[in-house]
């Protein structure tokens, strides 16, 4: 099935869209301030006219490529292109200062692709068994699972849990606009026909990640340092056999860690990169080289940020719970194509699932080719004027949201979401939980009410199965880590005395 899917996505009809996604993703990723999440959100409305496989080819191409290309600016100018490349600045830029720019860019490409392919392999191996297990979930388990996903994203995406919770609750409140899913009663529509079908999450995603980001950058007057690396100095790109040998074991460990981190809802490549860097440093024979331009360290961090993608895709596709903010947007995109991620996707659209896996493989191979061929030119990307990028983003936000339904109402919605996104960003309110609540909200409400209908109004149904209980405990641990830690410490002290 997978081989058939690979042959299918190698057809020029789909391959061209994967290549387009990889190229667009490379530009987005390499430019500091533009993230993979923004890229996927901006391009989602434009893929509306494509088949689901073609659309996913573009979006997965952007996702994989932007995460890889984020390392380019981290290496060349010490500014991470995307948050996932933070750890690459530790050693990548030092290598540039030591005159090893080419090698650093080569390592970034090769190890990012290895990480991407490894995590895709894990996706291929574990996705179907997880989906089969998840088929046993009933409405209470699903509701608790959605709450768990939301709580994880809240707990890791901001400094203050209260703000994350507020963002999530506002998102859940917004999805109650429109026809009630059980009785079809209009709610909070104020007589506006545009609101009868609910608030569309695509314009909101586009506005929050597009306009919101542009306004934040203008307000903070983010000026990107112009590239300082002399492109002519780029010499050796490929690591030697000895360097490959040294990096083999830490890379394997980093690959496993990053896939696991990716599968945890809310945790992304930034955390994976730092965790893997620290882990590899502890294991290394030369820990003093870490942070001073270590080839091993750069290999591990490059591998880690692309390694999370397969993990994040696994939870998104099998359970419908995204692993990070990009997969939260991808979840919305899949729903726009009429696909509901979750275990049923694996039975009703098994071919599409295999296509996604094949697209991940092909996308990574294209990154390898593009990355190695265009290494010498990649620095030129950083010379693009920030102001022109802002204008392009604003224009694409307007046209992308309008093009969905040829409706100015969607543009207004996008615009308001952009202003809200700006306020959220400035006030350190995480956007991830808000978007996730918008995407998963209908699932949460319908399963919540169906559960209560099944139990005739008894809340005990949410603790009636071991899966629900475990997920509820994990949710509580994610939202209230301190009181739980104190409780455990107190119990230990009691036991000692």
């Amino acid at each position, binding site marked *: 099935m997978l081989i058939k899917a690979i042959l299918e996505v190698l057809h020029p009809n789909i391959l061209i869209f994967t290549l387009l996604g990889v190229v667009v993703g490379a530009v987005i990723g390499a430019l500091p301030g533009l993230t993979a999440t923004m890229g996927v959100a901006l391009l989602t409305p434009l893929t509306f006219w494509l088949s689901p496989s073609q659309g996913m080819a573009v979006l997965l191409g952007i996702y994989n490529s932007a995460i890889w290309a984020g390392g380019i600016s981290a290496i060349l100018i010490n500014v991470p292109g995307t948050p996932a490349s933070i750890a690459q600045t530790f050693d990548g830029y030092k290598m540039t200062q030591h005159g090893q720019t080419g090698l650093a860019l080569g390592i970034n490409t090769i190890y990012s692709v290895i990480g991407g392919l490894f995590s895709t392999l894990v996706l291929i191996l574990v996705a179907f068994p997880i989906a089969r297990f998840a088929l046993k979930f009933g409405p209470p388990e699903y509701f608790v699972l959605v709450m768990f996903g939301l709580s994880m994203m809240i707990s890791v995406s901001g400094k203050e849990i209260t703000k994350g919770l507020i963002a999530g609750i506002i998102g859940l409140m917004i999805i109650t606009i429109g026809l009630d899913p*059980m009785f079809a009663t209009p709610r909070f529509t104020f007589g506006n026909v545009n609101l009868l079908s609910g608030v569309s999450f695509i314009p909101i995603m586009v506005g929050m990640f597009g306009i919101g980001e542009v306004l934040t950058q203008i307000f903070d007057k983010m000026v990107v340092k112009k590239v300082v690396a002399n492109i002519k100095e780029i010499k050796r790109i490929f690591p030697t056999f000895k360097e490959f040998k040294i990096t083999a074991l830490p890379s394997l460990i980093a690959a496993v860690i990053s896939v696991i981190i990716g599968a945890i809802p809310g945790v992304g490549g930034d955390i994976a990169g730092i965790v893997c860097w620290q882990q590899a440093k502890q294991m290394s024979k030369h820990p003093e080289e870490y942070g001073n331009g270590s080839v091993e360290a750069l290999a591990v961090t490059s591998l880690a940020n692309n390694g999370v993608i397969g993990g994040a895709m696994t939870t998104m596709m099998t359970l419908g719970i995204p692993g990070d903010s990009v997969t939260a947007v991808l979840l919305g995109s899949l729903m726009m194509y009429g696909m509901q991620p979750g275990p049923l996707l694996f039975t009703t659209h098994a071919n599409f699932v295999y296509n996604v896996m094949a697209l991940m493989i092909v996308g990574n191979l294209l990154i390898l080719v593009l990355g190695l061929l265009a290494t010498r030119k990649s620095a030129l990307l950083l010379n693009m004027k920030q102001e022109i990028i802002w204008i392009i983003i604003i224009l694409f936000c307007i046209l992308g949201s309008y093009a969905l339904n040829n409706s100015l109402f969607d543009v207004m919605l996008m615009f308001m979401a952009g202003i809200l996104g700006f306020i959220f960003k400035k006030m350190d309110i995480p956007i991830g939980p808000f978007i996730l609540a918008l995407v998963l909200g209908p699932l949460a409400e319908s399963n919540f009410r169906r559960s209560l209908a099944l139990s005739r109004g008894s809340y005990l149904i949410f603790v009636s199965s071991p899966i629900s209980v475990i997920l509820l405990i994990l949710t509580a641990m994610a939202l209230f880590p301190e009181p739980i830690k104190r409780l455990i410490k107190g119990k230990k002290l009691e036991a000692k005395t």
Partner: protein
Amino acid sequence: MINADIIFSVVCLAFSIFWIIMSLSLPRGTSGVPGPGYFPILLSIILIVLSSRLIYSGVKSKRIYFNFKEKNKANLITTITTPILIILFLIIWPHVPYLLACFLLLLSLGFLYKINLKTNIISSLVLTALTYFLFNNIFHTMLNL
């Protein structure tokens, strides 16, 4: 100085109270099946609790998110003018052809961001034409309202 935490919390409080009032007019559920207003009321109550907590922490910490005194005045003007230009574009778009409305928006944004005049005119023309071709001819979007 503006305490944004408190303002935001008060807005959230007002929003949740409004949501509860609106939800109370919705039909009630029957024999254990929650009605359409049940979920929104539950969420509004949680939002009231969380907003109250944020007000409390806002009073305690007095964090400043929008420090206008320190900010360069030009940044502030640009930040406010950008959404105004977008609103103006949305107002004029239904009344003039897309090509003109878009060109004016891009030109004014370029002027606002202090892009060199020649580059500004060329990039505005190119982007307008490119997006018209892309959306009108490829995506079949009705750009002329």
